[in-house]
Structure formats: C-alpha cells, structure tokens
C-alpha cells in the first residue's frame, strides 16, 4: 500500500494487514461447507447483451 501512500507507518501497514486477514476469515462464511454454492448459482448482477 506504500506505493499509494509512502507516509503509511509500520503500524498502519500492520493494521491494514490484520483487517484484510479478518475480512478473509469473515468471507469464509459466504461459502461454508454445510451449504456450498453450486457451479450454476449465478450472482445477482448479470450482464445484459442489449444496450439500455
């Protein structure tokens, strides 16, 4: 992230890293073993070929 903000401190980087890790752990709940998404389960946002 320092490529975007060279002034980020080590403490900032540590805070960011921990938060990314927390988010990744939380995201595991999106596809738990007990109810896996199937291959054909589409996201709610779908592409439309015809321009609006």
């Amino acid at each position: 992230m320092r490529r975007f903000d060279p002034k980020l401190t080590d403490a900032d980087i540590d805070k960011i890293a921990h938060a990314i890790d927390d988010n990744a752990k939380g995201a595991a709940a999106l596809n738990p073993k007990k109810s896996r998404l199937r291959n054909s389960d589409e996201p709610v946002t779908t592409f439309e070929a015809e321009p609006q």
Partner: protein
Amino acid sequence: MMHDEIAFADVATLQRLLGRGTVSSAELTELYLARLEKYGPAYGAVVTIVHERARAEAKRADRERAAGRVRGPLHGIPYGVKDLLATAGAPTTWGAAPYREQHFDFDATAVKRLQAAGAVLLAKLSMVELAGGFGYNDANASFTGPGRTPWNRRFWSGGSSSGSAAATAAGLVGFAIGSETSGSILFPATSCGVTGLRPTYGRVSRHGAMALCWSLDKLGPLARSAADADTVLRAIAGSDPNDRTAVDRPFPAARRRPRIAVLAKGTQKTMPAVKNAFEASLRVLEEFCDIAGEVALPDLPYDAAVGTIVNAEGAAAFRELIESGRSRELQSVDDRTGGYVAYATLAVDYIDAQRRRTFMRDAFERAFAPFDAVVAPTLPTVAYPVDLSFDKAYTAYPGVVSLISAGNLTGVPAIGIPNGFGPNGLPTGLSFLGRPFGEAKLVQIARGFQSRTTFHTRRPVLES
C-alpha cells in the same frame, strides 16, 4: 402558531398554513434559514446553506400559489439533502475533505423531482465521509465534525445520513433526503427520533448521488412523521433514463387489518430501555394489527455478505482516491487505512457474496410472504456517545439479530420510527420491514402507530 411550533410542524400542517395564507413559503424559508444558521453548526448538521436558491424557489412557489397553481403537497415546503446529492451552484462534498471543492453542474434526479413538486431546497446536510464506506469506528468521521443528536449533544446523530436526521429532528428543515447502503437512513432516524423510510432498491433514481455500492445504494426521506415520509417518497420515486435500476411501480396499500410478525430474538442483548419500549409498542400495534407471532430471520451470512459487497464496490467507486494516497486526508483515523483494506477484497469473495443474495432474497420471500411486515427494534441501544469509539460503547448490548444488513441485501423496504426514550433522554426506535415495493403498507402501519402515540411529535430542547 409560534415560530417554534411552525418549525417543528409536519408537512401536512405546513401545507395547510401555506394554503390558508397564514404563512408564505418565503417566510417559512427565512424561518428555517435562520434556524439552520443558529443551530446547524452546534449539531454538526449542515455543510452548505443555499440562501439564494432557497429564496428564489420560495418566491416562485408563492408566485405560483398566488396565481392559483399548487403543484402538490410539497409546494413551498423547505427541505434539505444529504451532501452526496449533486446540486448545481453549490459544492457537493460527500462529507469528505478531498471533495470539499467538488462541484457538479446539474441537479440529482431526486432534487429535480422535488423542485418539480414545488419544494424549496435550503441546504446540503452533513454526512459521514463517503457514506461510511471505509469502515469508520467513531462519530468524528466527517470533515464537518461529528454529527450530534438534537436530544443530547454529547451523543452522535448516527450515520451516515447524520445531518438529514438531525436537521429534521431539530426543526431546521421541513424534511430531508438521505441515503442508505446498509443502515444509513434507519440508524440516524433512530438516534435522532425521526421517521426514516428506506425504499425498495430501484424505487428511487440514484442519478446524481455519490455511488458507494451500486447494488445496495438507495435514497429515501427522513421526516417528522410516516405520512410526511410517504408524501416525499411518492414525489421522488419512479423510473429515470439516467438510472437503469429505477422503475415505476404502484404503491398498493393493505386492504385489511395488517398482519405483522415479530422478529425472533429481536430484543435479545438489547438495552433494557429498547426492550421495554419495544414490548410497549407491541401492545399499541395489537390495537390495529394482527400480531402473528414470531418469525426467525433465515440463517444466512448477511454481515459477511454486506461487508464484502460494500468493500469491493466501494473500493472500485473510490479507486482513484485510494490510489492517489489522498485517503490520508479523511477525518476518521480508520477511514485513512480502510480504503486499502477494501481494495484488497478478493474478487471471488465479492462474486460469492452476490451469489448468496439470490438465496437470501428467496429465503426472505419464503419466511416473510405471509406478513405485511416484520417488526423489530431498529438498534439494540440508544445513540452512541460522541467521545467513544463504537467498539467501546455499549459492549453489553450488541444485539443478536438485525434486520438492517439482511433487509438491505434483499432490497426490501423498511420504515423506522421513534417508540420511546432511554438513558440520557435519547430516543429508541422500531422498524417495520416489508415486501418488495410494499412501502405503502409499511407507512399505513407506521401511521397507525403514530396516530396512537406521541413520540414523533416530541421536540428536543436545542442549544446553539
């Protein structure tokens, strides 16, 4: 009527006064402009007051009325908008220092529709920077400083539509427009003791509104009654060629006694005042609704999904800000690094969250279809203290279930109303969650509650 009574009157009363000639729109506008100047800064509620535009719109409204043309129930009524709606001739800051000089040369569709309805724009109202998309953890998260609830200045007005709620509660505007991605109308409505109506996703065009999260963002009214919120929503709703998600749909009202379910576990781990107010509210609701027992929120990962979606879409919406390093200029310490966290969201997690939404929508339909509304306390506590980070306040009352994440992910409407008072003179609130495009039924229930109670008509004692 005294000035104070007029300032706190609901839209229907103001319209009656205008119709009788008791007051003109120009006089109402001057009354509210003076109150915005006097009280707005003390409550961190205002970013920009648009004096010239307000006076010109009020003059036009009076001129038309004198000529026999009244555009509708909002004709001549002064209002404010959250400062994420574009308005020509005034800055649109999104509550954030990096955008404080930002100008647009057009009005957002919602503003255009209110102008067409004859309403008078008074001010751009304060908000949490970037509508809270970068994960703020305390009230000091706007370049205008923390918003404060008119009921007690030591406590936060809620976010992210902070100024819209506070200005409405303090009688600084007739009504206001806010936005909600996940809680930003219902939360401040509760903290400030006003009525907040979060419409169905797609009911109101977002054209000209700051995008935080395209698949969740919605605009809606904050008002002093459910009837007012209904009037405003009808004025701003409808399709718009500039927002392909916006659609024209009717407002069907319930033709029978409303059937309501109570959210199971809704009062668990809530503040005692919230629980007591909610239980008393159920007794009021029983007078005119059939309470059909409890219904459980389908067990799905709402919080993980909403967090992932807001992070991914928010990082894309503010990619330029993040990559420029200017997040450093944000007010909240957590927002200064939160953009980088959001930026690192995995694409597969975002897609999976959007895949889960289909299941959530279908599960909601199965669970809630038999009811006109599901009711629960809006929040487990009263407003947060201004001087304490959120994760350190009210740790004993985290709540167990919340309709806010789930309701936003499924795109259904909700109305939040005041239903009591708790510690430090702060309001408590309850919410009704409805079926897609079922706002009229929610309004009908909320109006029934407000016709039997006086919480929505009480006024805070203001400090300037």
